[in-house]
């Protein structure tokens, strides 16, 4: 969605600039002469049928302003314009989601990690906690910096859930502190009886 919006922003930016440039040179050329013949503004107005455009817009505004039922078509056009404008603003202002979780970035280069190995590293760290039998971790980078780390772990029946959660969080600090990750840990009791 963001990629589409960004591509649209590029296209619209280019088209707007081209339209303005062409309009500028056309108006400049049609300023050479006077009256309504030759390269004159009067001739340009007749080529562009500005009188007809004026009447059409005036009629449309009159219809919109007159009392009566809700103008469905006009309302839909307005909604479409709003949505298109919002899509353009999204493409302009919302940064693309990072694929990497950045550890540090300066003139010497960037230190970063991909999502999957970082999640696997988190799983390994969590599985080292006493009372944890299995862990699954997912990393989701944020749009600006850092990311979210979601861990689902299974504990043994005898393990205290509060202590296990605290131990998991402590164990994960090795990843969450340097990579600016926000950890969300869910520790559930193991369902299988025998493994």
């Amino acid at each position, binding site marked *: 969605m963001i990629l589409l919006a960004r591509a649209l922003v*590029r296209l619209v*930016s280019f088209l707007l*600039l*081209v339209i303005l440039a*062409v309009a500028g040179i056309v108006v400049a050329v049609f300023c050479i002469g*006077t009256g309504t013949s030759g390269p004159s503004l009067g001739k340009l107005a007749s080529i562009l049928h500005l009188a007809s455009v004026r009447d059409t*817009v005036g009629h449309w505004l009159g219809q919109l*302003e007159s009392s009566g039922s809700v103008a469905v078509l006009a*309302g839909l056009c307005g909604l479409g314009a709003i949505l298109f404008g919002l899509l353009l603003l999204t493409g302009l202002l919302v940064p693309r989601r990072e694929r990497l979780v950045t550890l540090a970035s300066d003139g010497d280069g960037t*230190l970063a990690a991909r999502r999957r190995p970082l999640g696997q590293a988190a799983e390994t760290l969590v599985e080292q906690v006493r009372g944890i039998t299995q862990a699954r971790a997912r990393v989701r980078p944020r749009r600006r910096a850092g990311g979210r780390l979601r861990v689902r772990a299974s504990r043994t029946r005898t393990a205290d859930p509060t202590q296990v959660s605290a131990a998991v969080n402590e164990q994960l600090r090795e990843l969450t502190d340097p990579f600016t990750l926000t950890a969300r840990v869910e520790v559930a009791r193991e369902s299988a009886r025998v493994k």
Partner: protein
Amino acid sequence: MPRQRIRQRNSPLVFFGRLLTFLFAVALIWYGVMVVLGALKVAPSTLNSISGYRTAYNYLEGLTLHDVDGGTTRAIIAGAGCLAFLVFGYLAFKEIPRPHLTRHDLELADGERGDVTVEPRAIERLAETAAQQDPAISNASGRYSQDDLTVNVTVRRVRNLAATLRDAQQRVTDSLQQHELPTLPVNVTLAGYDRTHRRELN
């Protein structure tokens, strides 16, 4: 691993194109809201007082040929048109994407007796060897480009992961200096975790 990459060089002037699009988007939303309110039969005087749509229309409707046909007026309009063509045309030209290949031979010397060049693969191999000297790294693969050197590493230990990445970066930088190659930013990315070494004893 495909080592060649295409990058796109963006001009800073692209900002002005984006600014124009921003204004266009805001205008679209603003007048879209006005049209919706008009369709819902909000009083036209209220809409005109906050958006000025009827005032603008009446002004444009009242323009005659006599208003714009004077010599001075035409000169001003022509000047503004030419300026708009030059400025917006140049900005439009700068908006055109210019992709380029980033992986080239590194030219160290260009003298009368010949050229001294280093192939990208040699620099990549140097970086890979340097990174793999870290005991926590089981595999490394480099990708040299004009702007930076990227090293993707696979680790076998997750303890001190941040320190491992920093150490790999330092090793590669030192290695470049040791071989009298130009120093450039070294990006180190954790690209894999060797799960055959998953069990770690505390």
